[in-house]
């Protein structure tokens, strides 16, 4: 198993927001996390990435306990594409992507040839290399999200977390972005945990689906097992119909 999570409870202060989260992910797997607003998806991603103040339990990647590892060590194992990405507008695209190399650099941030190559490769794969010199303030939301993905790829980690990475994007960019991210992750053998609002996107991109409700792990399994009318109704409190898509490769979920 690449990722082994056993969080008894976690939150921002003494009162826990999420509790009893136990799951394991084999390498190269794409796990889609679904759940209503406030169900603890973002909190779980924060807990896994070590930025939540209070976490009881353990999170292991390749045997290293992230919660007890130093910042650099953790950042070499796990990269995050956050929900809303603040980029200081005065930074250029390549400067931002290069920051993905932070966990490999010393205090002064001196980068070497390996770092340059990793950043170049990440920019090429995400197709941001052609505007590498541009200032981030002039980019569109979709371009900005790709820059952040490039930064996460430059981090060169076995695991990638994405927190609703497409929530600010229009339909075309949503699909394009997820295809790019998931495709790259698959090719590079990365393990991915992606929180998604849109159940159809979860059905399309997740090898497995994990559902959160009230801070707890409500259901976990393959997309076919989880994305059923009964389970979705139990989690969202909303009756839905689930149809096979016209191409027969996935399901389509619409409210009844």
């Amino acid at each position: 198993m690449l990722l082994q999570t056993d969080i008894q409870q976690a939150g921002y202060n003494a009162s826990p927001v999420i509790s009893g989260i136990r799951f394991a992910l084999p390498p190269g797997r794409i796990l889609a996390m679904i759940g209503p607003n406030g169900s603890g998806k973002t909190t779980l991603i924060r807990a896994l990435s070590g930025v939540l103040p209070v976490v009881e339990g353990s999170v292991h990647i390749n045997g290293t306990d992230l919660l007890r590892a130093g910042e650099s060590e953790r950042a070499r194992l796990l990269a995050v594409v956050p929900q809303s990405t603040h980029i200081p507008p005065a930074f250029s695209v390549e400067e931002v992507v290069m920051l993905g190399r932070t966990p490999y650099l010393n205090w002064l941030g001196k980068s070497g040839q390996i770092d340059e190559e990793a950043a170049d490769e990440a920019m090429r794969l995400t197709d941001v290399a052609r505007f590498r010199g541009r200032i981030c303030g002039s980019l569109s939301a979709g371009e900005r999200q790709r820059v952040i993905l490039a930064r996460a790829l430059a981090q060169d980690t076995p695991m990638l977390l994405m927190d609703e990475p497409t929530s600010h994007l229009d339909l075309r960019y949503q699909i394009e972005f997820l295809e790019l991210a998931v495709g790259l992750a698959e090719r590079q053998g990365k393990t991915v945990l992606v929180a998604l609002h849109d159940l159809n996107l979860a059905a399309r991109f997740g090898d497995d689906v994990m559902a959160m409700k009230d801070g707890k792990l409500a259901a976990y399994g393959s997309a076919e097992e989880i994305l059923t009318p009964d389970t979705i109704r139990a989690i969202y409190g909303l009756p839905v119909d689930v149809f096979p898509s016209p191409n027969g490769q996935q399901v389509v979920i619409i409210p009844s």
Partner: protein
Amino acid sequence: MNRSSARPLLITTALLLATFVVSMGVGSVRIPLHQTLEVLWNALRGIPAGSEQAYRAGVILLTLRLPRGLLMAMTGAALAGSGCAYQGLFRNPLADPYLIGAASGAGLGAVLSLTTRWPTGGFSYLAVPLSAFAGALLAVMLTYQLAKTGGTLPVTNLILAGVAVSSFATALSSFLMINASGELRRALVWLLGGSTMAGWKPVLGLLPYAAAGMAALSAMAFRLNVLQFGDEQAQQLGVNVRRSRGIIILAATLSTAAAVAFTGIIGFVGLIIPHIARRLWGGDMRRLMPLSLVCGAIFLLGADILARVVMAPQELPVGIITALCGAPFFLFILRQSKQGMW
């Protein structure tokens, strides 16, 4: 980070030297350029002045203008450097040494010492700088404590707490000054950035603190880059946010307090200079920090030249000049940041 920083740094350093030489010649006694250079060059080689006129010029230059120029250059650099750090750290274009209460706290400490005239005797010349340090550190710690919620330090809290602490310190300073009527002028002149100390003493006093603060800020430039993405992203990129931020705040506060202690409250340098530098050379702090230091020195030297010529032979406190340039600029940035241009 391929944009080269060597060329702009070279150009601005040359500009700094030129401004410095000009500032040597300006004042109630005008000293021509060739004589300025000659006196400085001879002094460097330890050769005594050849004529009566050269001797007079030498006294003016070496005991008054040279230390003053150095003091202004160092102060400008320290203020611009700390402003650059605060703006990056708090991700706010309006952040500067005044924002987190550092300057007002230093001012209160200094006014306290000026109005009570304590201690007297051999240590009296150190009283103002030391109490300014104490005031600045106290103000920053107070701001920090007020703004902290749980284990985190939200930026808005920090700014609001800074404004509150700043206003409180300024009110106390005013109260002290009104109560001690005899000392009012001295304290007021100091507060407006007219150094009450002349000669080499303040230069040598400022040098170790400003140098330590600015060196630490330059060393933290890369961490500052990452911190500009917010605490969470910085941590996910492998930065120990709490430690890095602590070092940066300490270094910036040290620079500010040192500057305020030896030259009084000189506003807007820490606001204008990093902002212009960012516009010209982009956001990478490893380029921006050294350029801000150099440009801050140029700006304050220039303001000091103006302060000496506009009402000559009377001198204005340099803080008036910087405020006259800075306040409209402040409004300009405010407009721009409202439009999301920052």
